[in-house]
């Protein structure tokens, strides 16, 4: 006989599974068992059916699929004997769920069983129905269940009650039928029935207002009496748990009283005495007693205010808080959070204890305590609390630091009494945990700094000292670099000293040192380095003596692989060298940022921020510093990094106002300007910013991008200021753009067919573009790119990447292959689709990058394609 025939007993199978040493062995055993069970199922084997089902349940629990056993369940349910039915229903509940259609087949069996003579079978059916019935089954069988609510046997009654809960949930219309029977259920003596009756009652109350009213009028006194009986009852061995008779019933009753008393003064009045009795008399040295007290406190908090009770409740919570058991403390903290909304003063008294809990070793308690502290903070205690929290920040765990930092930052932001304190605290936070600080937070900090004009000197000196101590927090470095760039002269000349400061001597070279270290540090990311470059430019204007040194540092970034840094360093180098006359005007002091618009912008652009962060671009600077161009391919170049600047330097003003014509208006506004070389003008802050709402159509330049700061000599209205400064510098800008101007476009081609162009050619590769446009969508161009290999070697891992400026949208389809055989035998083709939102006004340009492997060496070729036909 086959050792794994259906004759295997459940325990033998379990033994076999336990004997397996590896997962693969276990799977093999299970597979064999399933196979034999399946054979037995198809053989319609009666004897071992329930054994097979038991085995199936075990297998299901281990996580293997067991659908073939579902019909077995049905057959077992239909069998006459009790054990078979038992296993059948158990299998039904475990292996099936309400979404399976097989369930409908069971309805008939269930109906018969609900009317069965044997009450245990009725109980089985009710149990199964209560656990997994679907809406249709509920509708069919509801009348039966209703009838059973008045059955003679209390066990059946209790099961019927719970079954009704599920029915009411699934088919809310039937709820009215159950309201009347429930009232009688609540007068029962049997604890089980009472328990379930109460739960049914709670469900009905949650479900409809009228039911709530009905129960409130009729049942409240009855319930209070029941609770009194239970509380005062003598020792009942069956229901006793650690000295208290049936704490579960206590808790359920309290819950129901809570539901009934919520919002209703009369009901609350009648509960007054019993709640006070429970609160005072229950012993709290056992968990059961504490559970009852907890529920009691929750009830007191939710019903209408009876002041004496509230004080009692909060005292109990205070006692809980100082309990050594972690569970109790957790529960107390939970309750206190709800209590804060009700009675703030009382909770404030326990502030120190709660603060201790923030430092607890248990993670759950820490979290709760932190949230509670956050709710408790107000103007009077904010300084003390923040100090405590920041002290704790130094010693907290890494995973907790993130939460803690976020909370501290929002507390400081909301409730700081004055600017100097705000700056102090934020600097401390940055120093400890800058890496956990979100972008909006340090942007806000910078806004505040610019607004506090008397504190500029103080701030920059503080930052200088901090960064001397440790520079491993990225955000701190960024803020410091920005401030040193802006207020470098104040740092060096000790301007704006406050009384509490000691004078420090900082030479110009020291300041430049700081920025240089930041830019050279290996862990500085793209944003930090970009900010360093800008800061260096500012310093070169403020400290003319260091100009040469700064120029050297900037020049070192010229060859950087990151496009952003390359571009900035080349441009700034050019400014330092050739355009000293305008340099000082360019990097003048930033105008004060308006805090009100900033916070309004921030609130309105949270959604937009979510979009922009997902697109992973920070003001045109790709934050994935590792491979900014690779991102292009992933997103189909939705958010290209900087690309070749466009040639129209003159109409950048129109670009600025061009909100809404391109999908990412703010980026286009700012980064357009960048590419025009006037990013120096507009992007002096050069930190990431969430784009403003599209709806801001006001031509106020400042409203286009919150960080779109145009540094001009102080003028009253910024919008009028930009125009003249633009005009004045546009001629200068043309010089800057000398190196970037694409060659004039080739001859115009008016026809709809465009000639193919040789887009890129090097000694080893040729790239041809073939164009086509579909009629009706003149903005969209389909390009087929053809790569041919001019050498005789084979290129493998051939990858083509492209970047386009903002007004273009590029979509790249996968290449035909990524191996390019030599001598032009075969070529790789790749389709591109470009949408030109400035169709007719600007022609296409594209920067490309081709990487491949030649003899197992990586080769990289880059280039710019500017000979696209016009009107494309």
């Amino acid at each position, binding site marked *: 006989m086959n050792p794994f025939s259906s004759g295997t007993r459940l325990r033998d199978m379990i033994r076999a599974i336990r004997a397996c040493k590896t997962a693969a062995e276990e799977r093999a055993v299970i597979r064999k068992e399933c196979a034999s069970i399946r054979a037995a199922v198809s053989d319609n084997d009666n004897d071992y059916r329930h054994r097979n089902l038991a085995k199936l349940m075990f297998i299901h629990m281990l996580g293997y699929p067991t659908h073939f056993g579902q019909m077995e369940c049905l057959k077992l349910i239909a069998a006459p004997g009790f054990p078979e039915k038992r*296993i059948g229903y158990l299998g039904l509940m475990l292996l099936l769920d309400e979404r399976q259609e097989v369930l409908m087949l069971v309805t008939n069996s269930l109906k018969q069983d609900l009317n069965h003579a044997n009450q245990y079978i009725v109980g089985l059916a009710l149990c199964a129905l209560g656990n997994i019935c679907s809406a249709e089954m509920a509708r069919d069988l509801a009348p039966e269940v209703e009838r059973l609510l008045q059955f003679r046997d209390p*066990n059946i009654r209790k099961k019927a009650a*719970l079954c009704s809960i599920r029915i009411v949930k699934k088919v809310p219309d039937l709820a009215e039928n159950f309201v009347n029977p429930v009232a009688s259920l609540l007068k029962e003596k049997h604890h*089980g029935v009472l*328990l379930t009756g109460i739960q049914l009652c709670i469900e009905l109350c949650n479900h409809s207002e009228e039911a709530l009213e009905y129960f409130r009028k009729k049942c409240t006194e009855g319930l209070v009496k029941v609770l009194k009986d239970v509380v005062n009852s003598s020792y009942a061995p069956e*229901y006793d748990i650690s000295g208290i008779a049936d704490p579960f019933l206590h808790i359920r009753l309290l819950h129901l009283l809570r539901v009934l008393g919520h919002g209703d003064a009369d009901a609350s009045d009648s509960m007054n005495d019993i709640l006070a009795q429970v609160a005072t008399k229950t012993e709290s040295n056992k*968990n059961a007693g504490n559970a009852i007290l*907890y529920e009691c406190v929750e009830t007191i908090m939710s019903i209408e205010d009876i002041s004496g009770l509230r004080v009692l409740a909060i005292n109990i919570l205070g006692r809980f808080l100082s309990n050594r058991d972690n569970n109790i403390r957790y529960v107390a903290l939970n309750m206190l959070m709800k209590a804060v909304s009700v009675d703030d003063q009382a909770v404030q008294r326990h502030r120190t204890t709660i603060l201790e809990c923030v430092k607890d070793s248990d993670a759950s308690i820490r979290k709760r305590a932190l949230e509670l502290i956050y709710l408790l903070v107000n103007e009077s205690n904010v300084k003390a609390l923040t100090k405590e929290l920041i002290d704790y920040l130094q010693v907290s765990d890494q995973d907790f630091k993130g939460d803690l930092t976020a909370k501290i930052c929002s507390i400081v932001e909301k409730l700081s009494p004055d600017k100097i304190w705000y700056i102090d605290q934020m600097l401390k936070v940055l120093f400890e945990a800058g890496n956990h600080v979100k972008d909006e937070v340090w942007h806000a900090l910078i806004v505040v700094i610019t607004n506090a004009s008397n504190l500029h000197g103080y701030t920059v000196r503080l930052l200088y000292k901090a960064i001397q101590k440790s520079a491993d927090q990225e955000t701190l470095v960024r803020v410091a670099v920005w401030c040193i760039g802006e207020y470098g002269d104040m740092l060096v000349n000790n301007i704006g000293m406050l009384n509490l400061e000691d004078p420090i001597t900082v030479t110009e070279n020291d300041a430049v040192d700081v920025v240089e270290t930041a830019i050279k540090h290996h862990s500085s990311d793209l944003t930090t380095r970009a900010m360093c470059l800008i800061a260096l430019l500012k310093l070169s204007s403020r400290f003319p003596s260091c100009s040469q040194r700064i120029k050297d540092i900037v020049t070192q970034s010229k060859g950087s692989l990151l496009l952003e840094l390359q571009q900035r360093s080349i441009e700034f180098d050019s400014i330092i060298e050739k355009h000293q006359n305008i340099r000082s005007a360019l990097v003048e002091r930033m105008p004060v940022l308006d805090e009100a618009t900033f916070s309004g912008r921030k609130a309105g652009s949270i959604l937009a921020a979510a979009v922009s962060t997902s697109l992973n671009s920070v003001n045109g600077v790709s934050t994935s510093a590792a491979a900014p161009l690779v991102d292009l391919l992933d997103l189909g170049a939705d958010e290209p990094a900087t690309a070749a600047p466009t040639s129209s330097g003159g109409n950048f003003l129109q670009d600025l106002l061009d909100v809404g014509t391109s999908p990412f208006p703010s980026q286009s506004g700012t980064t357009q300007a960048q590419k025009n070389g006037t990013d120096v003008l507009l992007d002096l802050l050069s930190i990431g910013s969430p784009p403003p709402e599209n709806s801001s159509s006001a031509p106020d330049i400042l409203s286009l991008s919150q960080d779109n700061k145009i540094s001009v000599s102080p003028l009253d209205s910024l919008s009028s200021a930009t125009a003249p400064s633009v005009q004045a510098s546009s001629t200068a800008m043309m010089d800057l753009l000398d190196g970037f101007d694409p060659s004039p476009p080739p001859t115009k081609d008016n026809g709809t067919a465009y000639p193919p162009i040789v887009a890129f050619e090097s000694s080893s590769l040729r790239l041809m573009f073939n164009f086509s446009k579909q009629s009706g969508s003149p903005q969209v161009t389909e390009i087929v790119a053809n790569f041919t290999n001019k050498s005789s070697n084979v290129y493998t891992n051939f990858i083509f990447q492209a970047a386009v400026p903002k007004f273009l949208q590029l979509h790249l389809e996968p290449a035909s292959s990524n191996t390019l055989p030599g001598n032009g035998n075969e070529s790789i083709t790749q389709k591109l689709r470009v949408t030109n939102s400035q169709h007719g006004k600007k022609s296409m340009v594209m920067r490309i990058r081709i990487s491949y492997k030649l003899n197992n060496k990586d080769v990289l070729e880059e280039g710019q394609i500017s000979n696209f036909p016009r009107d494309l």
Partner: protein
Amino acid sequence: MGIRFILMVNKQGQTRLAQYFEYLTLEERRTLEGEIVRKCLARNEQQCSFVEHRTYKIVYRRYASLFFLVGVDNEENELAILEFIHLLVETMDRHFGNVCELDIMFHLEKAHFMLEEMVMNGCIVETSKANILAPIQLMDKTS
């Protein structure tokens, strides 16, 4: 409402009993069990018995080599659930006599029956050990 699932897991992370009161696919169950078990097993004696996981709380208690985990809604009274776990263990103890992990494994159906008598559709039905064990003892007598 109330209880969402009850799990019994041993120290190596193997599930010994699983009863779910809401619908989850097999994949979801496995991932859920994996995550929760890892969290609970990693905690030491001093920490409190409540873990917050996604939208619900897990109340757990360790008895010898077996962890009892109950997933509940956020509104449920955690201390009461702790009591319930203890009641469950005591009931099984009374039936099996000095219950251990192997007892539950080899008599999985009986454990399920007991659990069914106590909890239905996520709500606690019966808390008296006599009432819970009566039908089961009856069934044992007849079979």
